């Protein structure tokens, strides 16, 4: 047994050593670029004119690489579905409720009632302003999901509507794809944001469809994270 262990740790060390050598070779001679590369320079020069968004990262995620984002949201949806499937097949004998955390106290319940609306509002603020300030659908969705998490912590026995979360999720997905197709029909291509006017640069109602798409992404991501949290929290001996 001991010899087996040493052989294994020898292989692990050799692998990590080789990897470390490769990393060393990459890092040792690294000098940061002084100029933007061509892709980045294109985005820097044309984002304001083509999409009307202040935040270039948002413009890349929603417009230039919108199809990738659609795929990513789909991957996330599949993850949520698989987690629910894997966990729902393992029904345990009933008894107890929630995830085994202690029943919440007065402080947590009251604090939750006070904080959850503010957290939800902040999440909505983050994804509505995604084209102007740092933030956007993914961050806002995560903040929404942490509001749901707080609710789950405060009332472990409470059941949330899977139906409601599923409906929000699928509705925002359908509208997202419909906006993309509208981009083909009315503007330059799939998910082109110029189906709406670009508005004045820097105001909240600008950048065409970017705020709209980011709101949908935020709702969809928030619903998916909430459903992952919920299925890990409750499925089995609910």
């Amino acid at each position, binding site marked *: 047994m001991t010899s087996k262990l040493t052989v294994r740790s020898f292989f692990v060390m050799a692998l990590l050593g080789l990897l470390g050598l490769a990393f060393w070779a990459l890092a040792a001679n690294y000098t940061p670029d002084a100029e933007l590369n061509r892709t980045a320079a294109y985005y820097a020069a044309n984002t304001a004119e083509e999409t009307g968004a202040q*935040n270039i*990262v*948002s413009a890349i995620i929603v417009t230039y690489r919108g199809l990738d984002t659609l795929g990513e949201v789909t991957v996330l949806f599949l993850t949520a579905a698989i987690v629910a499937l894997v966990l729902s097949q393992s029904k*345990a004998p009933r008894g*107890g409720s929630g*995830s*085994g*955390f202690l029943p919440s106290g007065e402080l947590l319940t009251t604090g939750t009632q006070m904080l959850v609306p503010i957290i939800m509002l902040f999440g909505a603020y*983050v994804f509505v302003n995604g084209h102007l300030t*740092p*933030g*956007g659908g*993914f*961050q806002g969705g*995560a*903040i929404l*999901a*942490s509001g749901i*998490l707080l609710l789950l912590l405060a009332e472990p026995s409470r059941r949330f509507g899977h139906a409601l979360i599923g409906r929000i999720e699928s509705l925002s997905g359908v509208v997202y794809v419909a906006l993309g197709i509208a981009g083909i029909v009315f503007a330059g291509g799939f998910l082109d944001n110029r189906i709406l006017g670009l508005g004045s640069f820097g105001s909240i109602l600008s950048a065409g469809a970017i705020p709209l798409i980011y709101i949908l992404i935020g709702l969809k991501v928030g619903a998916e*994270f909430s459903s*992952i*949290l919920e299925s*890990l*929290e409750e499925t*089995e001996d609910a």
Partner: protein
Amino acid sequence: MTALAILAAAGFGLAILGAAFVALRTRSTPVAVLAAGLVSLFASVVFLILAAPDVAMTEAAIGSGLTTFLFFYVLGRIRRESANDQ
């Protein structure tokens, strides 16, 4: 300003590595999970220093918030079921 940024980045980088060391070497799994969450939190500060506020927000909300809670939900279930076994 740059000297301060470099100093802060080096400090937080060391803090990341220290927390990662704790996450690997500690005996208790909850401590390891918390240390991994701490790594994410420090990493989000480093992202902010590297002029990536979008990434910093995402890492803080998702990497250190939701991931830690996913771990604790699974830990809680496993702990309760092993208690039921005995």
